[in-house]
């Protein structure tokens, strides 16, 4: 074997023998005819150990099959093979990764395949990484497709849920409208007999149907008080129901804030005086809202009677007016008292229907609990807002904001 290599050209031979790649020549049946020192060292064989061996015995098992099914047919049919990845098997049984180029040609009356094996180190790692990345990408792609499908399905479900929610919302709205209509009708129907009760009590009190005793007169006063209380509750319910049913009409017009506040004062003055609460109004006469003055008065009356109810003697209730917004596009009316105040955690609830701050207050201050709810609904109905600030034992401030009438 060494003779074959050495009897051509000493210089080239020794170069070939120690070239930085393995070299092997083998016949069609795989019998090795020559091998260089580099290959022997690569695989840990002594040169004479390769004598008579078949190339396949230098391959790992997977590469042996590949050699028989791909490599050999390729070289035989095509005469050459390039960049074929093969795992060689060293004498000690280790895999040696190589890239192989081969040429099959006739030499010395025999078909010989000359092969060089270049070791691959880093390249194999890169290829492995590439294959792994490719597989990962394929898997990710499949997963993405699965997710896309799932998303499509959940989108469909969401659409269906949305439709279901829309149906339920429609149903709820219908139910709410029915409730408001029912409340409006019932309140109206209840007022008629209550008014009849009130009328007949008056007739009796006036003695038109005959003289009454002092005890009877006292009872009539109680009946009358209860009747008025009930009537007030029902009116509140009716108002709320009307607002919710969208049956309230707003007659919007320029209204002087001061005039509206002054108009309400006589209605609460007796209460203020009897409770010993001081009262003051500070509103510039030019402040004008574009609003429904009856509704504003209703709101103010509610705010003032609340303030009066919850403010102890020697306390004070003040109404102030001011412009609001960057261009003065809104006006503000603030009703401030020095009353018991509302705990912070309850403040948001005071606008909910049927809520009063607590039972003890409810007992002390009569009312349906609808006043503030109605007031805020009315304020919003006119394009305004009603908000509250409060501190326990310091007082409360209710701010009614309304659209201003801007000078054109």
């Amino acid at each position: 074997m060494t003779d074959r290599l050495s009897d051509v050209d000493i210089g080239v031979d020794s170069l070939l023998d120690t070239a930085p790649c393995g070299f092997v020549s083998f016949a069609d049946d795989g019998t090795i005819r020559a091998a260089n020192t580099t290959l022997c060292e690569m695989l840990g064989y002594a040169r004479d150990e390769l004598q008579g061996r078949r190339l396949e015995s230098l391959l790992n098992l997977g590469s042996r099959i590949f050699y028989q099914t791909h490599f050999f047919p390729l070289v035989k049919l095509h005469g050459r093979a390039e960049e074929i990845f093969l795992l060689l098997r060293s004498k000690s049984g280790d895999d040696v990764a190589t890239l192989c180029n081969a040429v099959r040609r006739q030499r010395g009356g025999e078909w010989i395949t000359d092969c060089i094996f270049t070791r691959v180190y880093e390249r194999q790692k890169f290829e492995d990484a590439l294959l792994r990345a490719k597989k990962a990408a394929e898997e990710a792609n499949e997963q993405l497709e699965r997710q896309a499908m799932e998303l499509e399905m959940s989108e469909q479900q969401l659409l269906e849920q949305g439709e279901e929610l829309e149906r339920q919302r429609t149903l709820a709205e219908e139910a709410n409208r029915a409730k408001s209509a029912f409340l409006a009708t019932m309140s109206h129907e209840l007022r008629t007999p209550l008014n009849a009760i009130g009328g007949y009590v008056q007739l009796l009190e006036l003695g038109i149907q005959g003289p009454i005793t002092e005890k009877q007169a006292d009872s009539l006063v109680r009946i009358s008080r209860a009747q008025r209380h009930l009537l007030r509750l029902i009116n509140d319910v009716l108002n709320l129901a009307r607002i919710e049913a969208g049956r309230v009409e707003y007659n919007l017009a320029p209204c002087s804030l001061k005039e509206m506040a002054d108009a309400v004062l006589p209605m609460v003055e007796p209460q203020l005086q009897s409770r010993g609460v001081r009262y003051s109004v500070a509103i510039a006469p030019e402040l004008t809202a574009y609003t429904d003055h009856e509704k504003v008065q209703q709101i103010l009356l509610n705010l003032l009677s609340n303030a009066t109810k919850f403010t102890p003697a020697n306390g004070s209730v003040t109404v102030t007016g001011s412009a609001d917004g960057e261009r003065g596009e809104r006006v503000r009316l603030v009703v401030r008292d020095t009353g018991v105040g509302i705990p912070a955690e309850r403040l948001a609830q005071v606008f909910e229907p049927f809520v009063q701050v607590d039972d003890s207050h409810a007992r002390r201050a009569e009312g349906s609990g609808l006043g503030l709810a109605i007031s805020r609904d009315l304020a919003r109905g006119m394009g305004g807002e009603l908000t509250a600030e409060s501190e326990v034992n310091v007082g409360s401030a209710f701010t009614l904001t309304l659209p201003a009438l801007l000078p054109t």
Partner: protein
Amino acid sequence: MWGRLPPVACRLSSIAHRPSPIPDSHQSPVTMYSFNMDTSVLTRNNVRVFGHGTQPMLFAHGFGCDQNMWRYVTPAFADDYKVIVFDYVGSGKSDLSAYDPKRYSTLAGYAEDVLDVIHSLDLTDIILVGHSVSSMIGLLAANQEPERFARLIMVGPSPRYINDPPYVGGFERKDIEGLLETMEKNYIGWANFLAPAIMKNADRPELSRELEESFCSTDPVIARRFAEATFFSDNRADLAGIRVPSLIMQCSDDLIAPFDVGEYLHRTMPQSTLRVLQATGHCPHMSHPEETIGVIREYLSGR
């Protein structure tokens, strides 16, 4: 893992699988199926028929190559036989658009190809020469329609490649996985090597064609599935039922089909003849065509 064909290495299949925007009646398998089933199989499996004899000799290639591997052997039989060569769907110049992953995930699917070719040409009294895995594919076909076969000639057969003690197949599962990895690596390299080679020879189309013919399976997905169908198969249970006389051509030093396997086949298959060749390796029809031809001739003349 191989759910999607990689963009470079699946050159042929990607062309074949992609629907052409312009319908091409010459290549459309649908058109051919609807008008002439026979023609469609002949095109699909790239069937070639030649020779002056009447008795059909059907050569079936093994895994990793195509009908070209028979070119050193078939001329010797052209005077006395009708020689038929073909490519399995997914190999050689078969119609890759006809590739059905499910059908070709087992050897039974490949046996259907053999029977399709036989039916298309209405062959009887067949001598089937199968290399490697095609020995078992031929066996499966012969078990289905034994009346059509006269002889089975098996070149380097193995009914099972993976050891199953006491049965010795020669390989462990991890060895086959090593093969799959080696294939995977080389299909990267081949695609890179092949594409510029073809482009470089654009002025010599015959060279490009030869290149393509030399590469029996350039689609890594198909090749991998064929490898799995081949090397994970177990056809030991199909051997005893064979009703066709067979020749087992056992190479002297075949790492893929070791001597024990040839013995096992001979023991298990009735009417079988075992011939041990001087030829070494797994492809005696390529490495030792003369001896291969001689052994086949001798067997056929001894009938």
